[in-house]
């Protein structure tokens, strides 16, 4: 499951459509990508997370003492734009699923805000319903996200009926058939009476996608939608999602731990570690030139025939680009941050990566670095790249 | 430790519920049970004191506000005052219960322990011989036996062994005509003799449960890896069976104790009635027969207390036996 092969597309023989899509996505940067704050926005973000925080309280075994909690997400912000896919990458336990669930209103944030079309979302029943009308969620496990007691018809009909798209059995059936065709489950009337246990993993995930489409959302939060599918099917499902994105101008949040599929699918990639956002930017940029030590670690772990044996060159490139004194000393520092992600019950202070970081400085232990813009919409949260004033300001307060 | 406090708290709440329940119910009954009862008794000699006792029992005392009645009641309970029996006036209910309780405890205790051991052993053996004819024949037979209502089985046994075969005595706890209570061999012998049929009745009724529980757990446990490991080490089959498999398989049986206790108490109740065995069940029955509500409620309270206490005891034992709970697995 942990696909360490970044060039998943290359494994598929004779598939030139792949490179076409990659080229197209790169070419589309200037059109669709609007980085936060730096350049003029060509579009407004449709869904935004602003400084989200989520703590899960633990049932305290102690009678006295402070209540313990799992600090799953800390100070996380992101923005989704129509027609653009954003990948959220990280290892297990990094909080990426929690972020998705917060955006999907399956949990309520402990802190921070979610904004839809710039407006904060309300808590009452009507606003929740209105929100879900626009923001839908695709689950990771097709084997458990469909109710085994109900057939395809039920699953799709519920979405249609809840939002008033179908008023009678005839309309319902028509729309269900149309949905099945759209997700390439043909012949559609063959599938309409099936039950989940009669379908394969890929078919189930398509039903899950159809269910989401039935609501006619503007934003889709996809939580590792292909991780549990056979490798040979993943590409089909990803292509389906891409097509839907194009056709309906959907905003996508694509959660994954697989860099290759992030690269294939998304224009923007965000990296999370232990509940904190550490880096983000255009996918190619982040993948080719990761700045944050954790991103470097993550990407170095994925064997890439292109850069094998050229690690030193990558680091020299860093030196040329940034050229501050701190970076000059990096030399041939191959990221060696061995270890496990920290416990989120008592996470390390400041930047949560500092225990594993080969470049940790005293200030990293105490303060979380603010966002540093690195140009081209690429940003990171790392004191290595902060302006000197910022570092000294942080260490003196 | 916290876990035990929490559980103790729960049992206290259960106790309180039983006590309060006893208080509330007679006062909730439609109509006026006190007057109805008094009217029924008019045919016999009834004294002023008895009438007052009855009224007090039903809480028909308009001069005292209800919350004060409740507090008085609680106070009474704590001092062991459960009211005066109206059918055996003027004996306090507490005295009647004090006499009946040991008989029931003996009966239930003996039956519980014996059926647990016998049933568990049979369960182990059957599981061991899985697939043989034991396995196919015995469980359905036991199921059928346990589906028979306790008292009907008791009646059947009374008939067969008592009336027809005359092997065992079928009435009361000891030979009331010839032997007097005391620590004499005669008395003890008589007690045992009179206890045989009731205990057997209870055992037959509850055996099926133990056998099946144990057997199911054994089957699951026998497929666990540590049993395979014991086998691979070369231990004898009996050693594996008892020291490895059974030791772990028995844990659910212990949790089942609390449910089993509830069932055996019910069974004991009915059994005592059939055999005229002088325990709490019999007192309860007599109370019901003679509309002696003080006695009825007193019996209920004592039974509830005993069951709650026994449950708590079982939980304590379970904590000691299961290392997972001891080390704080939530």
């Amino acid at each position, binding site marked *: 499951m942990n696909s360490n092969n970044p060039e998943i597309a290359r494994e598929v023989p004779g598939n030139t459509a792949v490179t076409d899509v990659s080229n197209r996505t790169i070419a589309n940067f200037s059109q669709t990508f609007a980085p936060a704050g730096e350049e003029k926005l060509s579009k407004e973000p449709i869904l935004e997370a602003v400084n989200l925080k989520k703590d899960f309280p633990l049932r305290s075994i102690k009678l006295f003492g402070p209540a313990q909690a799992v600090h799953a997400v800390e100070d996380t912000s992101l923005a989704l734009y129509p027609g653009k896919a954003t990948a959220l990458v990280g290892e297990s336990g990094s909080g990426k699923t929690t972020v998705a669930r917060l955006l999907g209103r399956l949990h309520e944030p402990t802190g921070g805000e979610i904004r839809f079309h710039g407006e904060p979302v309300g808590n009452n029943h009507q606003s929740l319903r209105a929100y879900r009308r626009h923001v839908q969620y695709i689950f990771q496990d097709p084997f458990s996200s469909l109710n085994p007691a109900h057939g395809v018809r039920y699953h799709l009909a519920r979405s249609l009926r*809840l939002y008033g798209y179908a008023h009678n059995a005839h309309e319902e059936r028509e729309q269900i058939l149309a949905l099945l065709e759209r997700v390439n489950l043909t012949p559609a009337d063959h599938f309409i009476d099936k039950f989940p246990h009669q379908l394969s993993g890929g078919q189930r995930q398509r039903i899950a996608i159809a269910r989401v489409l039935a609501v006619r959302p503007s934003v889709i939060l996809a939580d590792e939608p292909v991780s549990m599918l056979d490798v040979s099917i993943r590409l089909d499902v990803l292509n389906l999602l891409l097509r839907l994105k194009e056709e309906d101008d959907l905003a996508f949040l694509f959660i994954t731990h697989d860099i290759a599929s992030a690269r294939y699918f998304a224009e923007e990639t965000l990296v999370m570690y232990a509940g904190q956002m550490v880096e983000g930017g255009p996918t190619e940029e982040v993948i080719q030139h990761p700045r944050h030590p954790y991103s470097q670690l993550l990407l170095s772990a994925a064997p890439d025939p292109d850069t094998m044996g050229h690690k030193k060159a990558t680091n020299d490139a860093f030196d040329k680009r940034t050229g501050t004194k701190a970076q000059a000393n990096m030399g041939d520092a191959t990221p060696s941050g061995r270890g496990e992600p920290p416990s989120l019950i008592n996470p390390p202070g400041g930047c949560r990566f500092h225990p594993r970081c080969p470049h940790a400085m005293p200030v990293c232990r105490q303060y979380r670095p603010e966002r540093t813009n690195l140009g081209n919409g690429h940003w990171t949260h790392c004191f290595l790249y902060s302006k000197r004033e910022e570092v000294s300001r942080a260490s003196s307060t | 430790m916290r876990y035990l406090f929490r559980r103790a708290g729960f049992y206290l709440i259960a106790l309180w519920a039983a006590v309060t329940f006893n208080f509330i119910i007679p006062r909730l009954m439609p109509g006026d049970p006190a007057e109805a009862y008094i009217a029924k008794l008019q045919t016999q000699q009834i004294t002023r004191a008895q009438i007052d006792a009855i009224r007090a029992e039903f809480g028909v005392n308009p001069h005292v506000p209800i919350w004060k009645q409740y507090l008085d009641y609680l106070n009474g309970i704590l001092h062991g005052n459960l009211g005066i029996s109206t059918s055996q006036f003027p004996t306090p209910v507490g005295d009647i219960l004090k006499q009946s309780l040991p008989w029931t405890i003996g009966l239930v205790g003996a039956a519980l322990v014996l059926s647990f051991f016998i049933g568990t052993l049979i369960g182990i053996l059957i599981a*061991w011989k899985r*697939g043989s004819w034991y396995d196919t024949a015995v469980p359905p037979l036991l199921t059928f036996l346990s*589906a*028979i*209502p306790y008292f009907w089985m008791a009646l059947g046994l*009374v008939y067969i062994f008592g*009336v027809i075969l005359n092997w065992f005595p079928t009435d009361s706890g000891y030979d009331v005509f010839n032997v007097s209570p005391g620590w004499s061999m005669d008395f003890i012998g008589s007690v045992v003799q009179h206890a045989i049929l009731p205990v057997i009745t209870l055992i037959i009724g509850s055996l099926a449960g133990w056998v099946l529980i144990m057997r199911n757990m054994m089957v699951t446990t026998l497929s666990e890896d540590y049993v395979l490991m014991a086998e691979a080490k070369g231990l004898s089959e009996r050693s594996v069976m008892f020291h490895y498999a059974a030791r772990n398989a028995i844990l659910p049986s212990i949790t089942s104790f609390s449910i089993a206790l509830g069932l055996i*108490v019910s069974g004991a109740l009915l059994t005592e009635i059939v055999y005229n065995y002088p325990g709490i069940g019999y007192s309860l029955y007599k109370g019901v027969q003679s509309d002696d*509500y003080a006695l009825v409620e007193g019996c209920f309270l004592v039974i509830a207390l005993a069951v709650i206490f026994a449950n708590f005891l079982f939980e304590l034992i379970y904590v000691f036996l299961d290392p997972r709970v001891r080390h704080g697995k939530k």
Partner: protein
Amino acid sequence: MQVTNITNQKTASITFLGSKKDRVSSIFRAITSNPKIAFGVSVVTFFVLIAIAAPLLTPYDPNASIVKGSLPPSWAHIFGTTGLGQDIFAQIVYGARVTLMVAFVAAIGSTILQVVMGLSSAYYGGMVDEVLSLIINVFLVLPGLPLTIVLASLASASGANKNEFVIALVLLFTSWSYGARVLRAQTLSLKEREFVAAARATGESSLLIISSEILPNEVSLIASTFVGTFVYAVGAEVALEFLGLGDTSRPSWGVILYWAQNNAALIVGKWWQFVPAGICIALLCAGLTFINFGMDELSNPRLRVERPLRRHLISRKSKAVASR
């Protein structure tokens, strides 16, 4: 005792999934192929039919004194007569109506209560769960039969027990807690499944999630607890009537036994007053229990699997025996 039964019989798989047609045909297959269910269902159906067809089966009125005194079984009176000269066979077949009706009503009501309590406490969690669980557990700990007796005797004091639904109510009150706890446990695990989260993400309301998403997955468990409650209700009802707490003027199986005991029938050897009623009760309860066992087997495939390890152990022993 509510226990499951592991056997190594090959049994058909029952499925509550699938279309209505699938379900009906799979239920039918399950009944016919599994001997336990077949036996149980036939027994229960037999008694239900008897109860319905009572007037056709006997010309006698169960309450009418036909002869003087208690006569042993004869061609005129298949099961003999009671101390008051009433035909016991008539009492049994008419009594079946009362016994079955009361137990059935109690079981249905209890099951509804179990479902509501168990499912809500598990799904809503938090404070609701704490409170409801506490209530469930308290009822669970209080001894059932003594409580039933107390309630029933108080009901008979006010004469309410003339109405058999009061007895049903009493039975309901004391039997719901066990099933509620079982259902709560099952619901707790179900609510963590992703399709519940998916239903929420689609925008379903809580009530609909409980009734349409979670409940259909618990149907086999609910059916099983219903049957178990039914068995308990029959037993407890008979016990209450035996103690004289039911309506002693209307014959039911328990009342037959009550009068038999009152007339000291066994001691004087008039076994026919006891035996028929007792056997009917035992058969009914056994039949229901077998239905439950059969359903356990069908819905839990693990109970049917023959573990290879067991064969291994058995064959070693038989090899050892053979080599002697």
